[in-house]
């Protein structure tokens, strides 16, 4: 094969042109093209599945929360724990109207994720015994432009049935 042949040279040149343009594009594109955040609810072993379905009123339930930051800059994230029902769940735009019972603050650099245990109280009164409640975990982020916490539009919840605690 004669490498100086016009056709061979043209093919080699085409491969090199495509390769160099692709490499240059990789360098020029922004590191984060589609920013997003993520929140996940895991069981007490920090695994998906085998979530508790029944809880005792007043007990502390151990669960795991997963957070991920892909916003392109460090993100101060806050997980707010609330107890609600199917009528007081958050939406993509509004948080749950129920009061915040616990708050977890985490700082994640871009591309980082974290999984951490939470011990949440089943703080409901007797009227909820035998009923289904939702343990709600909302994701809030600190807005650096507004200088305040804003609801991110992401949440996770777990439905559990409340039982009366056993008499000791």
């Amino acid at each position, binding site marked *: 094969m004669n*490498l*100086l042949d016009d056709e061979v*040279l043209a093919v*080699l*040149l085409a491969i*090199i*042109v495509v390769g*160099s*343009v692709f*490499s*240059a594009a990789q*360098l*020029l594109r922004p590191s984060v093209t589609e920013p997003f955040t993520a929140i996940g609810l895991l069981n007490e072993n920090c695994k998906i599945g085998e979530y508790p379905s029944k809880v005792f009123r007043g007990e502390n339930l151990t669960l795991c929360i997963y957070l991920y930051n892909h916003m*392109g*800059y*460090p*993100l*101060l994230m806050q997980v707010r724990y609330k107890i609600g029902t199917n009528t007081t769940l958050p939406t993509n735009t509004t948080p749950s109207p129920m009061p915040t019972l616990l708050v977890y*603050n*985490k*700082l994640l*650099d*871009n591309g980082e994720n974290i999984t951490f245990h939470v011990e949440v109280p089943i703080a409901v009164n007797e009227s909820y015994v035998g009923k289904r409640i939702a343990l709600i975990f909302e994701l809030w982020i*600190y807005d*650096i432009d507004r*200088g305040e916490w804003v609801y991110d539009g992401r949440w996770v919840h777990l439905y559990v049935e409340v039982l009366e605690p056993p008499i000791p």
Partner: protein
Amino acid sequence: MLKKPLTIAIVLLLLMTQALSIHVYAIDEIDKESLWNKYLDLYRRTAVLAKRGINVSSIVVELRTVLELIEKGDNDSLVKASNLLESIEEKVTKLEGEADNIVLMENLRKYSIVAAILSIPLLFYLLFPRLYLAIWFRARKRWTVEK
């Protein structure tokens, strides 16, 4: 006779020591609210630097440590957090001062690499035939041509 004044003196000494220790504790007491506000301000400044493309990963690690200390909430942790925030503030202020230069140098570096990569096809087109021929002739320089 001497017992009573001595007892009074000891009691006074003990009271003074106690008062002094309370006073010292009050000086060391850190206001959690102001510490948290300072933390939020430093986080905001760090995030702004990160958005400009400046590497702030080491500062983020330190801010994470401060967050843990603040959440612990005891006085020792708050004192440590306050000290750490001071050093973080120095670093952030320094980075903010150098930000324009860092961004300029980073852009120069990036676009130089892009220019170098994009010049490869042109260099190949110009140099490859000459290089190939040079190697071809060098490999065959001892060859003799037979009739």
